[in-house]
């Protein structure tokens, strides 16, 4: 019996300004089991971060709007919760690690105080000041920062160490779900390897579920159980890591992503990039949003939005898979 922690159904998000409406996320659905990690991959502007912010209901107030869909977390409908209840969930049950550790820490507080703040705000265990202090030491140990450094300020830490502080803050309240938004993009490769290894070990030890947002397919291959590929606000491919990295057939966009990465092991002459650019999210193409860049574009792709076809755990949203006996169309409910 599977134990679903998070379920997103037909989520739609728009950013509205006076002049235009940006369709950032268009009807995406996926679910996350307890203890699992899902990777969301895609280019800048694909809607990865918007999806994460929607789960936490942290979209910019004036412009961002969730216009449809449902997000269920442990049986609770997050989109219907009053703000005060939502605040209890944020940081305590769902925590987020942001991309840039330089800007996500407060420069005028010591790192110890910043970790303690999260514990004080979500003090469900009624910890006393002393116990909070002890817990701060505990999480600092967990992420490999000497406890003696908790009285230091963020500027005294290097980039990799700052990201460890951010991770310590996120883990302080033992959340059920950890959302990591490009946690290592701002770090050097040797430091990235250290941080990724640490995230993996902590996840396995604490049994935390995780959403890993990244543009790096290498990171996904090393950390994720399931993978969702996003393009122009849509989830165009979803499957287990096995499906995505070893599967025979893929969405043409996923193939393009793999073709764009220089291969370390083999000698290759030229990369096979995806031609063109991501469509303007204020005016998405009719039919398939990838059609203007697709090598396998057919007539139907320009007029009809593709359905989702599945084979086992693997789902692909593309007309190429219609009428293929191996792939069943998933009825939209």
């Amino acid at each position, binding site marked *: 019996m599977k134990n679903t922690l998070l379920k997103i159904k037909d989520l739609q998000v728009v950013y509205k300004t006076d002049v235009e409406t940006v369709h950032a996320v268009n009807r995406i659905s996926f679910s996350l089991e307890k203890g699992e990690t899902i990777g969301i991959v895609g280019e800048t502007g694909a809607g990865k971060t918007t999806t994460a912010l929607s789960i936490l209901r942290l979209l910019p107030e004036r412009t961002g709007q969730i216009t449809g869909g449902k997000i269920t977390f442990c049986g609770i409908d997050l989109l219907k919760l009053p703000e005060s209840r939502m605040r209890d969930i944020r940081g305590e049950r769902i925590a987020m690690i942001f991309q840039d550790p330089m800007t996500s820490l407060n420069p005028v507080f010591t790192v110890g105080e910043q970790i303690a703040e999260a514990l004080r705000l979500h003090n469900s265990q009624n910890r006393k000041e002393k116990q909070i202090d002890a817990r701060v030491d505990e999480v600092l140990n967990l992420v490999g920062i000497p406890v003696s450094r908790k009285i230091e300020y963020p500027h005294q830490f290097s980039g990799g160490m700052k990201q460890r502080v951010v991770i310590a803050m996120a883990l302080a309240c033992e959340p059920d779900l950890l959302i990591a938004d490009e946690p290592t993009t701002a770090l050097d490769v040797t430091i*990235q390897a250290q941080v990724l290894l640490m995230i993996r070990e902590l996840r396995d030890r604490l049994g935390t579920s995780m959403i890993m947002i990244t543009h*790096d397919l*290498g990171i*996904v*291959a*090393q950390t994720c159980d399931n993978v969702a590929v996003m393009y122009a606000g849509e989830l165009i491919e979803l499957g287990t890591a096995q499906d995505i990295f070893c599967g025979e057939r893929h969405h043409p966009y996923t193939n393009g992503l793999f073709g764009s990465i*220089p291969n370390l092991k083999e000698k290759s002459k030229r990369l096979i*990039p995806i031609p063109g*650019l991501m469509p303007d999210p204020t005016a998405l193409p009719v039919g398939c949003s990838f059609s203007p860049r697709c090598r396998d574009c057919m007539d139907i792709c320009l007029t009809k939005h593709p359905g989702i076809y599945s084979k086992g755990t693997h789902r692909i949203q593309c007309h190429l898979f219609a009428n293929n006996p191996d792939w069943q169309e998933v009825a939209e409910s």
Partner: protein
Amino acid sequence: MSTNGHSLPLIETVGLKKYFSIAAGQLHAVDNINLAINPGETLGLVGESGCGKSTLGRVLLRLIEPTSGQVLFKGENILSFDKARMRQIRREMQIIFQDPYSSINPRMSVAEIIAEFLIVNRIYRTKTEAFNQAAKLMDVVGLARRFANSYPHELDGGRRQRIGIARALSLNPKFIVCDEPVSALDVAIQAQILNLLMDLQDELGLTYLFITHDLSVVKHISTEIAVMYLGQCVEKAPTEILFNNPLHPYTKALLAAIPEPRIEMRQKKIELIQGELMSPVNPAPGCRFASRCPYRKEVCTKADPMFYSYEEGHFVSCYLYSDQSAC
């Protein structure tokens, strides 16, 4: 350390040093670098942030004056040139910057940016000719001519980087320093720009110094790779050799740290290096990597290691190879 004596390198450095004087002492940004790049080849310069890659690139073009050493361009030491000769020689050496958002003037149109060098250097008699040439350059780098009157903010990162490339090409240079030209771009766009740079090299016979922290990119584009750590070159080898047989513990760690897009590799135990870069201010004598190195010996912290020649074209600066011939 000229790699093969038979052809004259286009650009060569001899004992190049750049120390910055700061309040805390001397910051050793570039510390005794000896490199040579043959015409038509690409030297990939890899290292982590703060290791002095960009400073080296700028010193090569004399955008920063070095503390000591020589930069030989076609055999002549450009550090001895006066302003007028420097201005002449700069036409042949150009740079493409990392961030296409901040390296081009937002108040100039695309055509103006590309034509600027042509006008400043009085290559053409009239502005019309310069703008015609700019339009041709836009074709070369794959920018549609309809963008000629656009401003940089109207274009995406990939197109902006194409402007930077067109501008660098405008004076028909022989040598281009590419300072992380694809780091700010998405992977699909990155592939487009890498292909463009490689095509241009084939067509125009360009020589590149390609600075990057991304090893998979550097492998793809370079003929030879130099690995830098805290201002020093720790290993240098032809690309295939470096990837098949890395010698320096830092190079090994760097290669092991890349997450590969294949799930078979997930179970692989990787040898991580601990700790972080030490400060480049007044570094202690000895190997700069010693404090993080798992193979540290006593000798490593006594004196700087020499460059040892391991095999044809493969040099490493590490005491583990001190039984090889020094050079």
